[in-house]
């Protein structure tokens, strides 16, 4: 690997503990410029449960591209949604939206309406963000509906708010370690200047004093362009540098990039902000740039559309909510050869077979490959420990698998299953082809279910005990009252004069008289 020397660049000697080096398949799509996809005439968006009651639009209403669909006041723990295209809202309601469970989620459909003239919606421009208050910038990030575009889709404003004034370093994650995906690579090659600006904005909002770009050594052109952009960035307020690391999967995991760049580890069950770090994805800071400088909400993103069934694979600006059906049509994919498509990378992504499903904010890549080779079923684990070798967080996956398959939840918690990042490296190397990550997801979900059940039952126990105590107290109080009454009655009886109205004495007197009389008669 040729090393590119510059004062902004340093090469990290740190390596992932474990990790894999799968074939990259990146050259399929990283040589062409980002194109704009022919806009779909219909988009579908998922409405987060928290926002269902705060929709600003109703069925039949016309919306302009970029118009907010939800009320910004209520999005603290969720993210805003904007119309990706202009058109009429044709459907709001519960529909299947690709969730693994097959359960319905609330969705909203917009169809293009040629009758209506459309004006793209834009925010009020911020003239010079350098002079703007950080609250205003924060508010803009929140309004623009930006989420982590690396794949997690965690609301960015929430992440920023929780690390504000706690972090000194902002790490920009440009690793893009999964095979096939090149969207961040292209974005860096073409828009390095904008990304730098976005990073500066983010860093100034959270109060960081340093920005580090973490990037793998297989993206030479991106590194060069980024370096040039840093050189040319005159308004530099916050120090920037690039750290290049050896290509390996999963170096782009949040915890992994921190380890590779800084040598620090995020303590178990806590966030990077606890060690003064904030990690943002390249595409995310680019979206922040768009929101702040260009005043555009997040309505489309760069998606790598690749695979051997596409004639011209590459990266495209795709509106959020575009269906796979539309992609198949516009990209001229032979759907007879297509069994399934992969949303996301081949290691962590999800295989879908329903062409009605749509791209979401987190969709960075869709792979259209010919039907995979025949399905081989999983064999027994032979404890070869290859999984242990590749696990980036040093777990013992074969042991976790054993306990998951046997539903030994306590043992799993002792083996730190909660630290599993579900990167799929273990599944990739397993010679017995056991779907390890699925087992771990299952185990994690069961563990949290059991924990909830336990909490619920403890609550019920407490309520039951309280009720028992209350009933007991009431009973005792009643008993006390009864005793008091009885006592009072008894006392009253004692205090009563023995012959209150003189009846007894009258009878006695009468008896005495009779006796007297009898005695007299006998005499």
């Amino acid at each position, binding site marked *: 690997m040729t090393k590119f020397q510059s004062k902004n660049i340093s090469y990290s000697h740190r390596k992932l503990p474990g990790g894999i080096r799968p074939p990259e398949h990146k050259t399929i799509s990283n040589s062409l410029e980002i194109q704009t996809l022919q806009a779909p005439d219909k988009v579908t968006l998922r409405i987060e449960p928290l926002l269902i009651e705060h929709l600003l639009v109703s069925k039949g209403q016309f919306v302009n591209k970029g118009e907010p669909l939800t009320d910004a006041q209520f999005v603290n723990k969720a993210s805003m949604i904007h119309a990706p295209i202009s058109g009429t809202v044709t459907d709001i309601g519960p529909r299947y939206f690709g969730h693994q469970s097959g359960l319905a989620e609330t969705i909203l459909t917009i169809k293009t309406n040629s009758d209506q003239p459309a004006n793209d919606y834009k925010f009020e421009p911020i003239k010079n963000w350098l002079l703007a208050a950080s609250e205003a910038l924060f508010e803009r990030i929140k309004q623009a509906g930006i989420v982590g575009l690396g794949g997690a889709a965690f609301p960015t404003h929430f992440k920023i708010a929780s690390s504000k004034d706690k972090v000194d370093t902002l790490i920009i994650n440009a690793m893009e370690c999964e095979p096939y995906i090149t969207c961040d690579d292209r974005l860096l090659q073409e828009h390095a200047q904008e990304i730098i600006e976005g990073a500066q904005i983010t860093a100034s909002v959270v109060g960081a004093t340093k920005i580090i770009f973490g990037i793998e050594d297989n993206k030479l052109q991106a590194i060069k362009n980024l370096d040039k952009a840093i050189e040319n960035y005159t308004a530099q307020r916050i120090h920037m540098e690039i750290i290049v690391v050896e290509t390996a999967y999963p170096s782009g995991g949040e*915890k992994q990039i921190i380890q590779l760049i800084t040598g620090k580890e*995020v303590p178990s069950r806590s966030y990077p902000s606890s060690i003064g770090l904030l990690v943002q994805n390249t595409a995310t800071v680019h979206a922040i740039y768009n929101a702040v400088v260009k005043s555009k909400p997040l309505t489309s993103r760069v998606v790598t559309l690749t695979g051997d069934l596409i004639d011209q694979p590459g990266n495209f600006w795709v509106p959020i909510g575009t269906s796979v059906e539309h992609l198949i049509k516009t990209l001229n994919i032979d759907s007879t050869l297509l069994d399934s498509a992969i949303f996301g990378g081949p290691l962590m992504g999800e*295989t879908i077979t329903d062409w009605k499903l749509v791209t979401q904010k987190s969709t960075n890549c869709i792979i259209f490959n010919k039907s995979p080779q025949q399905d081989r079923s999983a064999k027994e684990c*032979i404890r070869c420990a290859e999984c242990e070798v590749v696990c980036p967080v040093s777990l013992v996956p074969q042991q976790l698998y054993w306990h998951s398959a046997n539903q030994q939840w306590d043992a799993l918690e002792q083996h730190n299953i909660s630290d599993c990042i579900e990167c*799929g490296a273990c599944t990739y190397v397993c010679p017995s082809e056991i779907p390890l990550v699925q087992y771990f997801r299952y185990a994690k979900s069961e563990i949290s279910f059991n924990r909830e059940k336990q909490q619920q039952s403890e609550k019920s126990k407490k309520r039951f005990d309280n009720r028992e105590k209350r009933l007991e107290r009431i009973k005792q109080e009643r008993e006390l009252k009864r005793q008091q009454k009885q006592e009072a009655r008894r006392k009253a009886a004692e205090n009563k004069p023995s012959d209150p109205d003189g009846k007894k004495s009258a009878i006695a007197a009468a008896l005495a008289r009779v006796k007297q009389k009898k005695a007299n008669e006998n005499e």
Partner: protein
Amino acid sequence: MNKFHQGRSTSQVMATACFALIPGAFAQIYFQGWGVLINLVICASTAITAEAIILKVRKKPVRETLCDFSALLTGLLIALALPPLLPWWMSIIGCSFAIIIAKQLYGGLGFNPFNPAMVGYVLLLISFPIEMTAWLPAKSIALEVASLTESIQLIFTGYTTSGMDVNSYRLIADGFTMATPLDESKTALATGLMSSEIMAQADFQSNLTGWFWINCAFLIGGLSLMLLRIIHWHIPVSLLVSIWLTSTLLSLYDSDLFLPSTTLLFSGATMLGAFFIATDPVSASTTFKGRLIYGASIGLLIVIIRTFGGYPDGVAFAVLLLNIAAPTIDHYTKPRVYGSETN
């Protein structure tokens, strides 16, 4: 779930291990005669048949499971551990026991706490100690060398048509019975000979050379397994280093009483054990540190058993003893999980 996979399957791992045995097997056939080949055939077919029968009884898919080649590997390993002219029924008992009791009764591949091949071997060793130590002298010094037909006759009937039995093939030129160098040296040391005197005997030397080449052949097979990343370096390297270290220390203490380290490293089943038996993934330790401890302990035990124990070779016992300890070793050598404070 996605089918993005490295592509190496359990069957391939096992099959590669079988192939890697080929150089060692050839060397052993060359130096120990046709009996080794016959053993290989008997053991492999017994192991596969036993596995098939028990899978049928357990109502498991027979053909798919046989295709993981683990039974074949077990059979081959037992065959290579057995003396060349062992009666056929003993080989069958050993292999059936290994597959049925040591492997399938525990749940089949992946569930056996002990290395099945070594369980089968040890069963035979403690049941038939005389037959199981009846090794042949190297071809160069042997009085008689059995042909293929004679080997078949010896294995299946105990006698050749000319009336010879196994013991007559064990004689060397001056009428002595020759055993393996380890056996021989142990007996000689017990009679008061010095280590250097034993090493100086011409017969002993030529016998030792045969075993040296057999071990070298297994070493080549093992190294290729390591290059193919079928096995990791930890167990073989720590095992061999431990043997070398322990025996060097012993001969430093008294070079007259103890054999030199090269003799221990290149005789008996050292290389077969280090690369093919101790590395059996199912029964070995799995963590990085654990494997080092596991390998080193096996090496130490091999030297101790060979030097002070009652049996001439100790690989099988050492491996089985450490098999029991493997879960405990794993438990105490769990790697530190990312972000956790303690081990």
